[in-house]
């Protein structure tokens, strides 16, 4: 919980990791390249004083994570999003089991999400059933650029992906977090393209599709789809830290999201340990759209911030929110709620 200027904010961090990217776990040069890429993200966008040494970043302890998220970072509930990468890391980068073991030692702090891969076929469907039962899954994180042998990725519209989405419906796994990456088959196509989200969101109206890092680097395509599909959400992982280094760009992205979606379909995330929730939460609560952009994008109210910081995700996962923090319950209109009029000079 974070309190500032008499306002209370219930914080759900929708995207956290407990990974092992250490050299001992790296299976090859790709594993090394992957964690170093994350580390550059971390170094590039964290404020001074918040940058870890590489060694700590590669593998941090349970105690560090608990301290950072809950003691220092104001987080009330954190959602573990696994990233298996078993072709890059001996024991996987960050599996459901690793997250789950930690979560069980700290009841009521975490939501454990699972994962699936359509290339695992029938066997994978059965494994998903077991995983769902073991961890009471309400959500999964899908990484479409995951390598598997000679395959460099997959699309949500692959026939087997539909089978898995049907299975999710059947098992009550309603929150599908989608993370795009640099590779898919065929490699000549734009792997960041989110058009496949459009198709499955239409085909599965009972599922919610939370697109991580709001489709970046394809923000515009994400917005175009999300404005038409009410069950598509934008996750702010990777977007949040721009609040420090490039606040005007952060305002633009948030402004675009509020225009094309609305304040009810945007969820806060730190992507811990890439970034620390403490400074993200503090800066976000203090943040306002710059004055010269307000004619177009409007202003952020404490209610909008409350929804983004926690209430929207709480709804997706039925997380109980203390009564005093609940914002006005009437939903804002979709689509053209904020800054809907194009700029017309007076």
């Amino acid at each position, binding site marked *: 919980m974070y309190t500032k200027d008499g306002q209370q904010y219930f914080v759900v961090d929708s995207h956290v990791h407990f990974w092992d990217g250490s050299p001992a776990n790296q299976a090859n*040069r*790709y594993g090394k*390249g*992957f964690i*170093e*890429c994350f580390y*550059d*993200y971390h*170094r*590039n*966008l964290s404020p001074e004083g918040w940058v870890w040494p590489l060694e700590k970043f590669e593998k941090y302890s349970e105690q560090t994570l608990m301290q950072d998220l809950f003691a220092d970072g104001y987080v009330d509930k954190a959602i573990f999003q696994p990233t298996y990468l078993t072709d890059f890391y001996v024991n996987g980068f960050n599996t459901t089991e690793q997250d789950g073991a930690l979560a069980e030692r700290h009841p009521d702090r975490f939501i454990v999400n699972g994962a699936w891969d359509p290339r695992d076929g029938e066997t994978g469907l059965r494994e998903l059933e077991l995983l769902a039962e073991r961890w009471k899954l309400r959500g999964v994180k899908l990484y479409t650029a995951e390598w598997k042998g*000679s395959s*460099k990725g997959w699309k949500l519209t692959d026939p087997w992906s539909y089978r898995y989405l049907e299975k999710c419906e059947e098992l009550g796994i309603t929150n599908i977090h989608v993370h795009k*990456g*640099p*590779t898919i*088959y*065929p*490699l*000549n*196509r*734009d*792997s*960041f393209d989110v058009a496949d989200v459009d198709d499955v969101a239409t085909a599965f109206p009972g599922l919610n599709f939370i697109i991580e890092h709001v489709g*970046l*680097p*394809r*923000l*515009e395509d994400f*917005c*175009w789809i999300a404005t038409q599909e009410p069950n598509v959400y934008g996750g702010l992982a990777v977007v949040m830290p*721009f609040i420090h*280094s*490039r606040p005007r*760009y952060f305002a*633009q*992205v948030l402004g*675009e999201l509020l*225009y*094309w979606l609305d304040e009810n379909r945007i969820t806060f995330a730190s992507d811990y340990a890439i970034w620390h929730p403490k400074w993200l939460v503090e800066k976000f609560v203090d943040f306002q759209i710059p004055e010269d952009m307000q004619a177009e994008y409007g202003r952020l109210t404490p209610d909008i911030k409350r929804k983004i910081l926690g209430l929207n995700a709480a709804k997706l996962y039925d997380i109980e929110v203390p009564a005093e923090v609940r914002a006005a319950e009437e939903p804002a209109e979709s689509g053209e709620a904020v800054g809907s009029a*194009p*700029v*017309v*000079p007076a």
Partner: protein
Amino acid sequence: MTAAPALAEQAWQALSGVRDPELDEPITELGFVVAAAVRDGGVSVRLRLPTYFCAPNFAYLMVADAYDALVALGEFDWVEVRLTDHFAAEEINAGVAAEAGFAGAFAGQAAGELDELRDTFRRKAHLACLERACRTLLDSGWQIDALAGTTLGDLPASAERESLVRRRAELGLPSGPDAPLFVEDDGEPVPAGALPKRLRFAKAVRVSIEGNSAFCRGLLRTRYPEAGVEGAVGFAGAEGVEGKVS
């Protein structure tokens, strides 16, 4: 040997015509050209990117375009362009050197060449340029309703207009002064009723491209701290002649 600096200058000019297709900016300005040398009748160029996992298709396009641009000069006996510090560098470098095409470089992993990808991003770049051009008109008092009847000739001479016309021509769309300003991807004018929404989308495209560009520049500086000064890499000519031409 006195020819080296002149050749270096030509080579640099050629490289500055190569754009990152996603970011729509020259690779020389983005700091992607890390080393370049004219020697022994040939030219050797090394490229680097902001991350180890930058998408291999875009990476390939930049390496191949740089290679083609240098070959097209017709001044060199040999041309070598090598990508470094990238997960697919080996495949890309070998494929480009062998002029094998993208499908040849990634046998079994690609279902074709990159024309469609390039075309998609040229259209995005065009839309972003269109938004910048419209913004100059709106800022100078034009009403949004009037934009549908506007022609390219109505745009005051400016960098925005130049960029727009160039991208139009690249796409084979009408680019003369009488051509309608706001056109769809197929060159058809956007009707007044549909224009505000299309312009709004164009803005999202511009925000996206500009944001990605700044992020990539930042990551490149983080990965290569010495890359702080953009375009500072010049050519090393033969006999140790430094041909800094940027």
